[in-house]
């Protein structure tokens, strides 16, 4: 017996090791559970080294940039970039508030709306695997990250935290085949489920054949998945074709558009309203208003109406609503949900937004060009939508 084991020692050990791993594999597949402690050991062993290497790389690049080539211009550039990113998010937030004011829900939204609490993180490595799309970021449970938290960039959603370790977290990217998120169009009429495909383009399931969706339409998170707060940009529809029983829709996600280096983890998500205007940065030419058009000539206010402030039409619209609130001694941003909002039916005739039909507005008031619907810029100038 002993000689038999000695003779076949190598093959015996091979079979034992493979059998043990097969049992491990079967356990995971059958119970749909992960053997977490092995992953924790490996990530804990690798992530400190990755941080050191990343630190050395960043230090080396920073030294060359800061002290040899550009001195402190790089630091200033990074600061300005961060400022631009912050302003872009703030801009989306402000656009949402202005648009919702037009639908007389502004008060409730203003009262309840607070920006999401986020945590900045750097990508320290990519995941392995043939078709898997995961990354690791340098923030973990110590920083308050938990499994299931949403990960975004200023351009849109990027993924969700799949596993949180003490010093790092694994993020499942939006392009991974296992990723899914609820999405909808800007007007909230079409809802669907975004799925990754293992390629740069994602697909959207459950879009009915009767739903109106066209290439170029912007999609936003719907918040139905309880992971991503509503209102974050997802991407633009790339193609739409009829299928059975639903339409075949592909989307180019906007989140990873500028590369994977710095991300934001949403620690406390806050739902936002969907902007009615697409977030494209392409300028759009708006022709001058016809002569005598009251909505296009805000420089001729009616008697008794407050003078229109300078700026865009959105600024004027906001000031009108603010003036009405001040007149009724209402302070915006205060009060509990359900409390009495100001009476917007008492808006002065000349100050009413285009298309407004309150009690004070004459029925003959001309409506604004439908393409801009009260949120456009001064006529005759380029508009950044």
């Amino acid at each position, binding site marked *: 017996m002993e000689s038999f084991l000695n003779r076949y020692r190598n093959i015996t050990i091979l079979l034992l090791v493979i059998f043990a791993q097969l049992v491990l594999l079967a356990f995971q597949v059958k119970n749909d559970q992960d053997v977490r402690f092995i*992953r924790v050991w490996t990530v804990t062993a690798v992530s400190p080294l990755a941080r050191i290497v990343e630190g050395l790389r960043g230090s080396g690049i920073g030294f060359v940039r800061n002290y040899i080539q550009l001195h402190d211009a790089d630091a200033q550039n990074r600061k300005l970039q961060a400022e631009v990113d912050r302003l872009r998010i703030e801009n989306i937030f402000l656009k949402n508030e202005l648009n919702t004011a037009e639908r007389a829900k502004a008060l409730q939204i203003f009262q309840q709306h607070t920006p999401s609490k986020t945590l900045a993180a750097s*990508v320290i490595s*990519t995941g*392995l695997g043939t078709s898997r799309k995961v990354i690791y970021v340098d923030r973990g449970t110590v920083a308050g990250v938990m499994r299931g938290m949403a990960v975004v960039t200023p351009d849109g959603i990027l993924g969700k935290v799949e596993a949180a370790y003490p010093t790092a977290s694994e993020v499942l990217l939006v392009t991974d085949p296992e990723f899914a998120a609820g999405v909808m169009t800007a007007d909230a009429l079409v809802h669907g489920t975004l799925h990754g495909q293992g390629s740069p383009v994602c697909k959207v399931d459950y879009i009915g054949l009767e739903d109106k969706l066209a290439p170029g339409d912007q999609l936003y998170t719907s918040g139905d998945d309880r992971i991503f707060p509503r209102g974050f940009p997802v991407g633009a529809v790339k193609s739409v074709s009829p299928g059975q029983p639903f339409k075949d829709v592909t989307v180019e996600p906007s989140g990873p558009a500028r590369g994977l280096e710095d991300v934001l983890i949403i620690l406390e998500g806050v739902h936002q309203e969907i902007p009615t205007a697409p977030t494209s940065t392409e300028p759009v030419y708006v022709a001058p208003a016809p002569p005598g058009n009251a909505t296009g000539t805000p420089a001729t206010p009616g008697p008794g109406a407050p003078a229109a402030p300078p700026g865009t039409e959105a600024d004027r619209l906001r000031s009108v609503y603010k003036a009405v609130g001040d007149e009724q001694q209402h302070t915006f941003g205060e009060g509990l949900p359900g409390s009495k909002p100001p009476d917007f039916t008492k808006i002065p005739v000349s100050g009413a937004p285009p298309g407004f039909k309150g009690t004070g507005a004459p029925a003959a008031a001309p409506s604004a060009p439908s393409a801009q619907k009260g949120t456009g810029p001064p006529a005759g100038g380029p508009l950044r939508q």
Partner: protein
Amino acid sequence: MSYSGSRMLLSSQRESQVTKFRVWVMLAVPLTALLFQVYVPLFFRFLAFLDMPLLVVVYLALMRRSPVAGVLLGSIVGLAQDSLSKNPLGMFGITKTLVGYFAASVGMKLNVDNVLMRFLLAFFFCVFHQAFYWVMERALLRHLSQFEIQTWLVYGLLNAVVGAALFHLLDKLRVTA
């Protein structure tokens, strides 16, 4: 003692001497390979084709010429690679265990100091790794991934080219008598 050789086959068991490495080399080299695999493609995407953990397993198993050591090395590196991926633990583990075993077995029969032999073995084991992983995905996970033999061959060729150079560098870490 010369490590280079022109013959492909070893004439006797005596010639297949075990190559020794220091303990820190056996730990640091696989760990560095894993780090390379998760970190470098982040900045150089065109290097994502490289499977450094596989090349390291093949080299160490070939040079150690011990099937048991090859099995243990392959399983540990494979499980670590699984841990850093979305795979269930064992997919890379089983594949690399087999690679380690077969590489060590081949190392006892062939002259693995020969550059051409190293190139061919690296190519063979890279393609074998891809093919066996594909079989495991379909059989155990029921993933309907594509049978891409042309991709595997190109992948094997590129890895073999890098592997031949890498093996030469790793030769410097051997303990010389």
